[in-house]
């Protein structure tokens, strides 16, 4: 546990169930993702001091902010936390400059204006200092909110869905600006978002929260390829989830053999499960190769599977394909639209795919049938996740 970063452990059963642990080092940008209602905002509000959880500990920069065992519960004013609210929550009767100055109570009066001007310049708002929030665009309001949050010289910056209320073009621009800005900040940053793509673009690590429980924390690429459970996999909109049995391990070749529907699949080595154990497994859509008919291609020998195309849905530059395998299982993946056209991929056509061994990930089997996730995380791949097929 880092002394200077943020450390939060929160547990309660009522009124909102929470079992969350979050640590964030200075300079780290941590994304907190989860579907709506997963407790992201409650967790954030607990850290900011706007919500008092039943039990837990929150500390930042070596200072206890909340600890139910000692009765410590600092007011938001005393936590030195900068918060960018979802709808910005700017003070509508104050100009952009006054909004920023409002966060500078700890500074000498004479120094405030100059510093506020500097902060506004840092978020590219020179010349708009004297505009009121109603006269600013969504993106400009977001920048004022960011400058106001930083005005306090916080020990921690919390961003609650900061890009959700702006259009796509502005969002990309603001994301880029945040990525640049964070390089100059040496405090922990926590970004709450339901947009997985955004989390992957900005965060050093992602923490997945569902029904108030922090399920997994991982760097974005690893998280996508290797979710720790089927629950996380579903939240990440993985569609190709199956059940199988570990057949054998071959550490020398870095392979684990998986028995599935009478076939033997080779997967990346994972010694966590002894041979014979039931497991759930997934293959990322990005790790499925479609072979051109009649022509051998790279990776063809890895887990070749034949099937019939059931659906080929064109979504702009990519085409989403559902393939029904010989055993009746369906496999979902995307290829570029021009490749689909060149290869004549359309419903009813026979096709062969390979599941790359590196992309096959083995997880503990699901013990009980769980309710499907009500709303998957927003991202490019947001189709509803199907239940595990047995």
């Amino acid at each position, binding site marked *: 546990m880092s002394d200077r970063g943020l450390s939060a452990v929160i547990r309660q059963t009522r009124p909102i169930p929470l079992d969350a642990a979050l640590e964030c080092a200075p300079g780290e940008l941590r994304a907190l993702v989860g579907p709506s209602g997963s407790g992201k905002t409650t967790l954030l509000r607990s850290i*900011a*001091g*706007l919500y008092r959880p039943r039990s837990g500990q929150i500390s930042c920069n070596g200072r206890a902010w909340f600890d139910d065992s000692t009765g410590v519960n600092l*007011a*938001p*004013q005393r936590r030195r*936390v*900068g*918060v960018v*609210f*979802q*709808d910005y*929550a*700017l*003070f*509508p*009767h104050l100009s952009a400059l006054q909004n920023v100055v*409002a*966060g500078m*109570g*700890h500074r000498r009066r004479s120094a405030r204006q100059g510093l506020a001007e500097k902060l506004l310049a840092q978020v590219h708002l020179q010349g708009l200092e004297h505009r*009121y929030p*109603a006269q600013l665009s969504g993106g400009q309001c977001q920048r004022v909110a960011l400058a*106001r*949050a930083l*005005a*306090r010289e916080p020990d921690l910056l919390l961003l609650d869905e900061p890009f959700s209320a702006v259009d796509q073009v502005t969002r990309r621009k603001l994301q880029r600006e945040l990525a640049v800005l964070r390089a100059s900040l040496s405090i922990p940053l926590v970004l709450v978002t339901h947009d997985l793509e955004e989390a992957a673009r900005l965060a050093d690590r992602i923490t997945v929260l569902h029904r108030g429980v922090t399920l997994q924390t991982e760097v974005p690429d690893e998280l996508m390829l290797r979710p720790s459970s089927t629950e996380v996999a579903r939240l990440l909109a993985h569609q190709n989830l199956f059940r199988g049995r570990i057949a054998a391990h071959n550490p020398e070749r870095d392979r684990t053999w998986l028995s599935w529907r009478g076939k033997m699949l080779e997967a990346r080595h994972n010694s966590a499960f002894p041979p014979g154990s039931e497991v759930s497994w997934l293959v990322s859509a990005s790790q499925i190769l479609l072979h051109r008919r009649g022509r051998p291609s790279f990776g063809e020998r890895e887990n070749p599977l034949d099937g019939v195309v059931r659906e080929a849905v064109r979504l702009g530059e990519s085409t989403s394909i559902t393939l029904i395998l010989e055993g009746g299982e369906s496999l979902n993946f995307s290829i570029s639209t021009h490749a689909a056209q060149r290869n004549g991929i359309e419903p009813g056509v026979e096709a062969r795919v390979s599941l790359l061994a590196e992309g096959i990930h083995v997880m503990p089997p699901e013990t009980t049938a769980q309710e499907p996730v009500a709303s998957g995380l927003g991202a490019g791949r947001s189709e509803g996740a199907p239940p595990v097929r047995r």
Partner: protein
Amino acid sequence: MDWAAFEVSLRLAFWTCLILTPIGIIVARALAWSAFRGRGFVEAFVALPLVLPPTVLGFYLLVAFGGDWPVGQFWQWLTGGSLVFTFEGILLASIIFNLPFAVQPLQRAFEAIPGEVREAAWCSGMSAWQTFWRIELPLAWPGLISAVALTFAHTLGEFGVVLMVGGSISGETETLAIAIYDRVQAFDEAAAGSMSVFLLLISFVTIGIVYGLAGRRRGVRV
């Protein structure tokens, strides 16, 4: 023109506004933001003077202000005087019957302030007191103006309660509204007419000024 009655009316309106405004703010904030048991009961109690006949309210206040009841006894103990038929008595009555006119516009105004804006103020390091003066009050400004305007105008015009509690003692509890009634009873229509015009003008100008002020303030543009 009964200048003594005019002076009583203005004095009564001024003091009612001055005392009721902070009370109205406290009650309105509590009703707008706090969830507590019996909230509906408190709201109903505050709104009661709107629907109660002024003579009924006046009757109960007259009884309560008398020496047989705690309110009257407390006042007696505190000042040695009586609340009945005195300026202090009609002032207290005026504060009570004006409660809904002060509280309701303020409550609507406070309710219109998003919770996140107050939280943003706290997270910007502002104390509860600073948040009140620098964020809440400027944003609730139109509601405050309405509350003061309505209280002021309503106090000038109130007749039944003031008559019941204050009697009609010239220079002490006889307000302009009561003086008009007296003049009409005495068939002095000229005096009643001039005082009525005066009251009409004052009420209109007051309301005009405060609404004009409210419209010019940025607080309206929330």
